């Protein structure tokens, strides 16, 4: 029951994180200095990405013992796609944390830092989309039992 609840929280926070990752990419794209709203956007995207990843890491050990075998029996491709999801998830988180720090630390008169951070946020958003898509597909095949 708890694992299914945590899986559900992981999924919902993850979907929110996907949406939140594209917001700073748009806001920072031209390198304009951070406003209060854009600071909130950057902080929220990093926070939600971290929360989604933390839920995933908390689930991982139980997933490995309770679900992974069933998943591979169901579909070898899906089992391997879940491994890809893990990789993309960590990479997206590292990108978001680095880009958020860059956006916050960049001097107001140096737009090139924010432009670079925007590209990293956009790439992290694409990674997160892949993670969300693969996660949804894999969960449709095998997940924690009730």
């Amino acid at each position, binding site marked *: 029951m708890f694992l299914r609840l945590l899986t559900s929280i992981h999924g919902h926070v993850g979907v929110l994180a996907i949406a939140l990752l594209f917001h700073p990419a748009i806001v920072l794209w031209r390198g304009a200095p951070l406003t209060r709203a854009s600071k909130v956007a950057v902080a929220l995207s990093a926070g939600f990405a971290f929360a989604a990843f933390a839920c995933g*890491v908390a689930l*991982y*050990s139980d997933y*490995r013992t309770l679900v*992974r*075998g069933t998943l*591979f029996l169901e579909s*070898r491709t899906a*089992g*391997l*796609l879940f*491994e*890809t999801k*893990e*990789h*993309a998830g*960590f*990479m997206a988180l*590292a*990108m978001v*944390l*680095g*880009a958020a*720090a*860059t956006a916050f*630390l*960049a*001097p107001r008169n*140096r737009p*090139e*830092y924010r*432009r*670079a*951070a*925007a*590209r*990293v946020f*956009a*790439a992290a958003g*694409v*990674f997160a989309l*892949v993670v969300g898509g693969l996660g949804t597909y894999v969960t449709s095949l095998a997940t924690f039992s009730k």
Partner: protein
Amino acid sequence: MNAPEPLTTRERFAVAALVFAVAAPTMYVVHRLYEVVRGGGEDPALVLAQAHIGFYWRIASATWLGGTIAAAFFALARNADRARARVALSARVLPWWYGLLLVLAWWFP
């Protein structure tokens, strides 16, 4: 001849953070490729046999190596013009680099 403008400490932190955003994912993929080359490739039996600690270990080593590379850039970045030019160039190059990392993560699960 004027001396090059030095980077402020805040700007050096910004450079280091951007370097971390590139280095940590890259180190993760390098670590995974090393595991695949060493023999833990796409065989589902091998994937199933992997302990969950392998994933945690990859995360830890990629974060540590990414942080170390970022710290090295923080220590070495001195010339403001050169650093800013590289940051500007990174905005064009990074999407392609991340695309390559995603393809590698897909090919070598």
